[in-house]
């Protein structure tokens, strides 16, 4: 390795470290999540609003975008000196700490259709509602979990079934549950609900059987105890003496 090549590597490393340092500084924005819904039904119109107090020393460029359908993104930087704003499919505002004290970012749009369902990884059903960059580096992303009426019902059924299946040791219930998950992932919610229901019933009936057996065992134990006690008492009472 020549000296020149190795010095280039060092320079690159230093630059990368600086870039990361800057990005690190930029990422340290403390957002207030004024209005960030956790989940929303497909086709409804939602608004996501975040804001933060400007405490940087140097001016920066803030950009925002959204994956919502027909999204309108707006950024408003306001302060005692001046107010600057921009809106549109994407928005970009220069924030000057000398003039602006607060920045509010908002995204408004319709929740888009879901392309891929995954019960185990609900993240795949999220939509990116708002993404904010400062000087080109991402400083915040807000996602909303989206659902359709059917998918929500199916997920709820699967959640209930999973709770029941985890509490039992029934293999049949587990395989039914796995099948329900596959059906959910392929978008066949009605079948998924039915299969999840079956899994839940099976797990619960096994649980009930176990409960019944335990109760029966306990009852038998108590009866045996009482019976034994009575027998012992009777045998103690009974006159087994030969002489008197």
């Amino acid at each position, binding site marked *: 390795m020549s000296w020149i090549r190795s010095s280039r590597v060092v320079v690159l490393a230093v630059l990368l470290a600086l870039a990361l340092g800057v990005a690190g500084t930029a990422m340290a924005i403390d957002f207030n999540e004024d209005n960030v819904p956790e989940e929303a039904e497909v086709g409804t119109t939602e608004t996501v609003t975040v804001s933060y107090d400007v405490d940087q020393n140097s001016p920066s460029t803030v950009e925002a975008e959204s994956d919502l359908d027909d999204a309108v993104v707006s950024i408003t930087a306001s302060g005692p000196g001046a107010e600057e704003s921009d809106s549109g499919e994407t928005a970009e505002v220069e924030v000057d700490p000398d003039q602006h004290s607060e920045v509010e970012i908002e995204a408004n749009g319709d929740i888009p259709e879901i392309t891929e369902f995954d019960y185990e990884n609900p993240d795949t059903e999220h939509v990116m509602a708002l993404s904010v960059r400062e000087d080109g580096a991402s400083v915040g992303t807000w996602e909303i979990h989206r659902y359709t009426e059917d998918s929500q019902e199916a997920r709820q059924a699967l959640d209930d079934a999973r709770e029941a299946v985890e509490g039992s040791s029934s293999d049949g219930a587990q395989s039914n549950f796995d099948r329900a998950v596959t059906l959910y992932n392929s978008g066949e919610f009605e079948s998924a609900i039915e299969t999840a229901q079956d899994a839940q019933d099976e797990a619960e009936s096994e649980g009930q059987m176990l409960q019944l057996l335990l109760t029966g065992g306990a009852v038998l134990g108590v009866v045996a105890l009482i019976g034994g006690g009575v027998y012992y008492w009777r045998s103690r009472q*009974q*006159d*087994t*003496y*030969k*002489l*008197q």
Partner: protein
Amino acid sequence: MKLAMIGFGQAGGKIVDKFLEYDERTGSGIVRSAIAVNSARADLLGLERIPEEHRVLIGQARVKGHGVGADNELGAEIAEEDIDEVQGAVDNIPVHEIDAFLIVAGLGGGTGSGGSPVLAKHLKRIYTEPVYGLGVLPGGDEGGIYTLNAARSFQTFVREVDNLLVFDNDAWRKTGESVEGGYDKINDEIVRRFGVLFGAGEVSAGDNVAESVVDSSEIINTLSGGGVSTVGYDAESVQPQNSGGLLSRFKGGNNTEVDSASTTSRITSLVRKAALGRLTLPCEIDGVERALLVVSGPPQHLNRKGIERGRKWLEEQTGSMEVRGGDYPLNEPNVAAAVLLSGVHNVPRIKELQQVAIEAQENIDTIQSESEENLETLVEDEEDELDPLF
């Protein structure tokens, strides 16, 4: 002593049933086999412990299972006729395992009173084992016919058995008892006495073994002279011994010591009370031919001196040198003395019974002889003017 018991008649069946209950309850193991014989089906059905296949109904051709109605001559007749049926049940008894037969019967009734001497005669003819009788005398207030039955049966039964052990209901009846409760208590008394006596030699593994075992041969020898026997019995509760709990082990063995003087006097007092006041057939013990004394109770309460003294006392009282004795250790909080007096002669109760029986017999004869004449007086007119139809 292992016995084959045959309950003849209602009272006999019930007493054998009680013996089985006593055996089951105390585990004494004296009844090797039990048979009930009766001419009344209902009485056989009332038994609880005697196995169904050991219940023999005799005289079906004559009385159709309804009993002989206190007619002991008829009882003897049907026993004679159906003796093979009884023998059929006796055939099931493993005779090599038994020491003796015991025929139990109430002497006042019909079936047992009449049939038991017949069976005794039959068994004696076939088997070498001794055949004993346990006869229950009716109470004096039970009526003349029963007394007459008892007196006649007693005579025959004594002659046919190797020894007749007698229990007198009169000596044990208490006023104000219900019929069933009264008989039940009397049967309990019978069973307890004879149970202790016959059970004395029956020791199983793990039991205490007596210093001086009362073996079945002792009982057989005592009864061997024949005649009539009575059993005296008395029991007293004693403080149960500490069975050796953890605490008492640390405290030492002081409390297992029993005062020897009081033990001796207790035993002699029990023997006296048993022989003088609590006999199954009250009698004068002076002149008794043979006697057997069994003292039973917790081993530490049985002392040799007491038993020796008791035996000595019996020898003095009976005037007989043939007084056997032994102990029967049992782990229970009672001490008891059982006295078997064999060959008793001076029994006022039997004389009294016979007197009443003679009177009853005369009365019956008189009434019977006058019966025809009286009926004629009633039926015929004074001048004999009326003619019968045919």
